[in-house]
Each structure stands twice: as structure tokens, then as C-alpha cells.
């Protein structure tokens, strides 16, 4: 039989396809690295953790180790990725980055992650700020995560908007105006009302971030320190909610969609004057201004960063490097995680993409305060210095397994409702209904 040219090509494609099917079916043993002790370590990170350039350095210093890195775009997608692979029982990398927001869920299955104390954690555990180490330690005292960055919060403000309202624009004066170390939510909202009366414009972008910051500041948030749910009849929580509802009633909210901000343009057109800024958010602000076609160098954007935060020191976000028990090379993986969180590397990560170090030696490293694109954007603010001060006094709040669900799905919709003008009590009751549906009767 004589095949036409097309048939031959078709047959070749079919053969190749079926071979590929078979080949991929049995190629999962790749990480073993059979050739003479060579080890391939896989790393999964997300967002802007600033590690991309460090792997080559580690490979050069540790012959026989190759690193295969994968960076997922957002923390939310990284969570889905990690959860799916934990559920499947396979597929996790040797080193997996875990975000503080879903650390509570991970802690509920902490036996799926190796106790880093068995791989040298005890020798290095003094390097972190104490509360960071505490966050990465599970209920049985096993250290499962090495801290990378933390998110101490300062206040971003738009000096052009402040000037228009007749407020001072110098960052030290702004800090003093809000009460300095005694800055409270009362003083923050009071100044906001003054601003709103002077300009008719909003004081903050939307209620969700304010609410998150308020809750993160409490000694006990959605859970008590012993891990009991702590939402219904929590007077402290309700009082903060009422305060936020009053601020909304006074027209202080810019009613923005979070993570959208009208495609960034609300950062450039003076829609709101202040913004909650954990360290990693600074790059986000710059990016939003850039997206909206604003001045990404900051010369005319008007944004500045003050060493003050309503209600005192607080932390939002931050990441840990974990080693799953699925890893075939826990020792090597733990070594890599330890190296990536050393002071020198944390400084390099900060300079690359801006995550603020959780290691004390890195926080005081003079190299940290060298000018970066981000500090230039914020009117040459001494970002590292401010964030180090803002990290002082942060306490680790216990985060339970449903913490992120409570934040996003129980209070998230009600915070938006506040923005849209729903009364505080009604919005709170709606949140309690959702709490009952999503958390209590889950």
C-alpha cells in the first residue's frame, strides 16, 4: 500500500502523540536525580518575593543541587495550588511558600509538613523577630515555616490631596497630626471628617482594608488564643464595626472595588487621600499608578509614606517557606529554605521586589535603606527605617483554620455593604447570618 504524504505526516503525529502519552505517564520519578548524587529541588513561590535571582547563587555555592523554581502570580492562586496538591497527596514542591492569610488552614494539617527543628531550625531560630517564629510554629511546638517577609503597616497618604485640604504634607507632621505613637482610629477618622468637610472627597479607599487592619490589631481576632471561634457577641469586634460604620456614614469611604481601584486611576485622580500600607503594598500602589498611566517615578504622583498607623503597630500578611513531608529531600530543602531566609538574602529580596525582612539582622542592615525605585516613588521616604519602626510592638494573633474565609466571605460582603451605604447594624447582622451559614454550619 502506498501512503500519501499527508497520511505519513498524520501517522508520525499520531505516533508522537501516543508516545508522549506513555512517556508522561511514567516520568514522575524525575526529581530523584539518579545521576551521581545530583539533586533537583523544586520551589514554589508567589507574587513578588524577590527570590528569582538568588537560586543561581545557591546552585553555584552548592554543587550537585539544581533548583527548579515556579512563581505563581497571586497568593490566592498559590493557595489553590497548594491545597489541591495537599488533597491529592502528591505534587507539592520541596519548598512551598505559604501566606499568612491561609497559614491557619495549613496549621490544621501541620503533620503534612516536616518539623524543621529536625533539620537545623533550632540553630537559627533567633534570627527572626519572635512573633514571626511563633506564627510559623504549630500547636505541638513544631516549627513548620521559616519566615521570609512581614507586613508591618504604615500610612500612605497623598500629599497633593492633603495640601488641597489645608493639611500639612510633611510626613513627620502628618504622623504627629494623627497622634504619633498614640494614633488611634478615633483620631484617624476625626482627621478624615475634617478632610471630607474641606474637600468633599473620601478619606480612605474602601472599608475592607480598614476592617482587616482593625481586626489584625486585636489581641484575639476571629479566634481566641486557644483556637475557639470568637465572633458572635464579641463586643470588641462589634465596637470596631460601629466605628467603621460611623466613618462610612460621614462619607469617608471612596467606595472603591478593592484590588481594582477603577483600574488604578483612583490613585491618580485624588478619589481618596489615605491608604493602608503594609510594606508589600508600597509596590502595589506604585504599580496601580503605573497601570493608570500616572507618574510611576513618583515626582508628580504625590504619594508619601508616614511612620504612623491608627491603633498602633500591626501586621498584615507575610510569607513562610515550608517543606512538605512529600519532599524526597527534606534536609536539602530545609537547607535551601534556611539560606533563602538568611539576612543577606532577605536584603537582596527586599531590594529586588520590596518584601520587608522578618530577620532582625536584615532589618538593621544599612544596605536596606539604600534608595530604590519604590522609595523614590514615595517622595524619597526612608521606607526601611519606617517599616522597622512599624514592626516594633507587633504581636502574633492566633489565626484559625477558617480565618481567611471569615475575613473574605463573612465580613467582606458586609464591608462592601457599608461602602454602599447600608446601615452598620444591618451589615453586621448580615455578616452574622453568613457566619452561621459558612462557618458554624459548614
Amino acid at each position, binding site marked *: 500500500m502506498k501512503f500519501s504524504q499527508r497520511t505519513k505526516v498524520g501517522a508520525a503525529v499520531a505516533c508522537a502523540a501516543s508516545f508522549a502519552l506513555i512517556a508522561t505517564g511514567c516520568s514522575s520519578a524525575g526529581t530523584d536525580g539518579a545521576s551521581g548524587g545530583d539533586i533537583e529541588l523544586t520551589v514554589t513561590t508567589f507574587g513578588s518575593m524577590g527570590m528569582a535571582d538568588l537560586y543561581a547563587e545557591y546552585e553555584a555555592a552548592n554543587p550537585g543541587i539544581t533548583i527548579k523554581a515556579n512563581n505563581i502570580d497571586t497568593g490566592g492562586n498559590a493557595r*489553590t495550588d497548594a*491545597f*489541591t496538591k*495537599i*488533597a491529592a497527596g502528591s505534587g507539592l514542591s520541596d519548598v512551598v511558600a505559604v501566606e499568612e492569610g491561609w497559614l491557619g*488552614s*495549613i496549621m*490544621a*494539617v501541620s503533620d*503534612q509538613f516536616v518539623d524543621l527543628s529536625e533539620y537545623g531550625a533550632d540553630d537559627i531560630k533567633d534570627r527572626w523577630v519572635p512573633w514571626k517564629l511563633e506564627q510559623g510554629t504549630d500547636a505541638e511546638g513544631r516549627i513548620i515555616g521559616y519566615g521570609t517577609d512581614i507586613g508591618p503597616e504604615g500610612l500612605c497618604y497623598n500629599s497633593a490631596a492633603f495640601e488641597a485640604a489645608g493639611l500639612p504634607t510633611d510626613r513627620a507632621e502628618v504622623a504627629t497630626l494623627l497622634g504619633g505613637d498614640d494614633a488611634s482610629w478615633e483620631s484617624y477618622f476625626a482627621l478624615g471628617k475634617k478632610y471630607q468637610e474641606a474637600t468633599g472627597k473620601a478619606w480612605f479607599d474602601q472599608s*475592607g482594608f480598614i476592617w482587616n487592619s482593625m481586626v489584625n490589631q486585636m489581641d484575639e481576632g476571629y479566634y481566641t488564643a486557644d483556637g475557639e471561634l470568637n465572633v458572635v457577641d464579641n463586643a470588641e469586634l462589634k465596637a470596631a464595626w460601629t466605628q467603621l460604620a460611623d466613618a462610612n456614614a460621614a462619607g469617608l469611604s471612596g467606595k472603591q*472595588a*478593592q*484590588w*481594582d481601584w*477603577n*483600574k488604578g*486611576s483612583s490613585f491618580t485622580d485624588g478619589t481618596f487621600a489615605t491608604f493602608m500600607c503594609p510594606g508589600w503594598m508600597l509596590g502595589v500602589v506604585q504599580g496601580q499608578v503605573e497601570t493608570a498611566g500616572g507618574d510611576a517615578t513618583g515626582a508628580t504622583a504625590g504619594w508619601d509614606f508616614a511612620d504612623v498607623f491608627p491603633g498602633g503597630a500591626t501586621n498584615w500578611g507575610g510569607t513562610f517557606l515550608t517543606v512538605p513531608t512529600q519532599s524526597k529531600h527534606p534536609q536539602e530543602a530545609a537547607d535551601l529554605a534556611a539560606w533563602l531566609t538568611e539576612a543577606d538574602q532577605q536584603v537582596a529580596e527586599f531590594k529586588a521586589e520590596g518584601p520587608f525582612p522578618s530577620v532582625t539582622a536584615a532589618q538593621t542592615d544599612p544596605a536596606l535603606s539604600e534608595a530604590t525605585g519604590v522609595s523614590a516613588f514615595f517622595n524619597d521616604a526612608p521606607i526601611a527605617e519606617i517599616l522597622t519602626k512599624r514592626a516594633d510592638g507587633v504581636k502574633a494573633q492566633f489565626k484559625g483554620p477558617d480565618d481567611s*474565609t471569615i*475575613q*473574605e*466571605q463573612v465580613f*467582606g*460582603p458586609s464591608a*462592601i*455593604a457599608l461602602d*454602599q451605604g447600608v446601615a452598620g447594624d444591618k451589615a453586621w447582622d448580615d455578616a452574622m447570618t453568613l457566619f452561621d*451559614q*459558612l462557618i458554624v*454550619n*459548614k
Partner: protein
Amino acid sequence: MTRTLEPETSAPAPLKRPGRASALTYKHRLSRLDVKVSPYLYVAPFFVLFGLVGLFPLVYTFVVSLNNWNLLSGPGEWVGFDNYAAELSDPLFWNSLFNTMSIFLLSSIPQLVVATAIAAILDQNLRAKTFWRMSILIPYVVTPVAVALIFSSMFSEQSGLVNHLLSFVGVDPILWKTDVLPSHLAIAGMVNWRWTGYNALILLAAMQSVPRDIHESAALDGAGFVRRFFSITLPSIRPTMIFVIITATIGGLQIFTEPRLYDATSSTAGGAHRQFQTTVLYLWEMAFQRQNFGKASAIALILFVIIVAFGVLNYLISQRIATADSRSDAKNNKRAVRRTLRNGAKEPRA
């Protein structure tokens, strides 16, 4: 009907002669085996694959749905049908079902009507046929993710294109992402944009196989375009129509990407107040955010039953399209029977 007329003796069984069986050569036996077994071997790959990636997951999902199963910590205690009972009494589940139905109806009905109309137009003697046919398929080539991002931007509440255009005719900005009906309309718009052309092409293919001489003789008898469309074209494409309706039903009830990405920044998938959270989206949230795998599996199976029910319902409804056709079918059959009887033919026409 005609089967009953089949003469029992038309195919006399071959007479068995002693010694005949042993006379079969190896090749003969092989070829008999070939005839009997090969067809099954040819279709086997599909069934093996289906069993592996279709049936097994289905059964496994059922098992999971009977357990209190956490995504991360795995199977908990056996709860029987409690997950089903809990979901069927959960207002959020019914909310998702309402959204699914609403988006499904808003998309499928206009989509099929328009697709049929486009197909009828393309079925005419147009210039540059291929150009027109390919043009309507272009939206189908664009990935749904890109479509969702573009629509999401167009329907942005603050500075979206649509609200901007509406402002020219004096319409107040519509809250396309906050309000229920506007968000459903926008999502249905995405679905329609993507699938109308595809369905039109399938229907067009069916229309092209309708014999032209029927059209011509009807035209000679004085039937206009509309009359011919309803009396000839529609009845003739019925099987294809059923196919299109059923695939549209399955697709419409499983819609995920469009509502997921329509407001991608929302912390609750499908809008902050779940105003456009479809059932598949609800299922996904249940499994991967609320981490309740058992309930998520129960939702999946409830949805499966609903889709099957809708498929059957649609099949029954679309069977009624052009009953005239079935009537003429029956007439033809009767005629054939009569002819067979008259001729006394041994073998009825198939």
C-alpha cells in the same frame, strides 16, 4: 412496524454437516474471531479511557459525597446523605441555582434563535461564503479568559465603555457588577458572543444537507422564504437542533470561567454578595476555599442530576419541533408497508 413482516424463513440457517466444523482451518477460525471480536476491540479504547477518566471519578465523587471530607485533612466520618440534605436546604445553594438558571435562559434562548437565523442567512447564495462563515466563528477561537477580561473591563461600573456609551443617551450608570440582573445580562452576553457563531455553523451544515429540490418545488408552489424556513428547513434539521440544544444546555448549566473572571478581584467568587455565583462556582468555592470536599461532591452530583433532567426535558420539547415532519414520516412508513405487501417482497425496505 415493518419488522413484523419479516419472513422467518428468508434466511435459512445453514445446514450443519458432520465434519464441517473440524474442516475449518486456522485462518478461518481467525477470521471468524476477527468478525466477532474486532469491533469490540476497536471501540474498547474509548470505553477503557471513559472508565478511567469518566466513570471512576464519578463513582469516587459519589463516595466522597457520603463522607464528611475535608480538602486538606481527608476523609472524616461517614455521614450518608447528610451532605445532600444540607445542600438542598442551604439558601446559598439555591441562590447559585437561581443564578445558573437565569444566566442559562438569558444565554441559551437568544443564542439558539440568533444562531438559527444566522445559519438561514448563510444558507443563501451569498458571495464570499467562506469569508462569512469564518467570520462568525472568530469569537469561538478567542479563549474565554480573554473574553471575560475584555467584557469585565467593558462593563466596569466606574469607567467602563458600556456605561460611558449609555451616558450619551442619558442613561444613568448601571451597576453591572453589583446588581443581579445587569450582571446576569453581561455574563450571558459573553456566552452568546462566544457560542452563537459556533452553533450557527453546526446548524448551517445541517441546513446544507436539506435537498435543494424540495425547496425548489416548494418555491414553485408559491411558498415564500419564511414558509419554506418553517415548513422545510426547521423540520429537516431537527436531529441537529436537538444536538445543539442539548450541548447548549450542558454547557449553560456548567458555566464557570465567565462568572469567575467577570469580577476577578472579588474575594467571594461570583460577586461579593454572590449575585452571579453559578452552581459550578459555588461548588468550586465549597471545595477549594471552604475546603468541604464532601459537600462539594454532593453539589456536583445534584448538578449532574439536574443537567440530565434538563437534557431529557429539552429532548422531549425539541421532539415537538415540526410535528409535521413526524407525521409525514409515519405516512411514508405506511406507504412502504402497503407497497411491501403488494409486491410480496421477501425483504422489506430498510
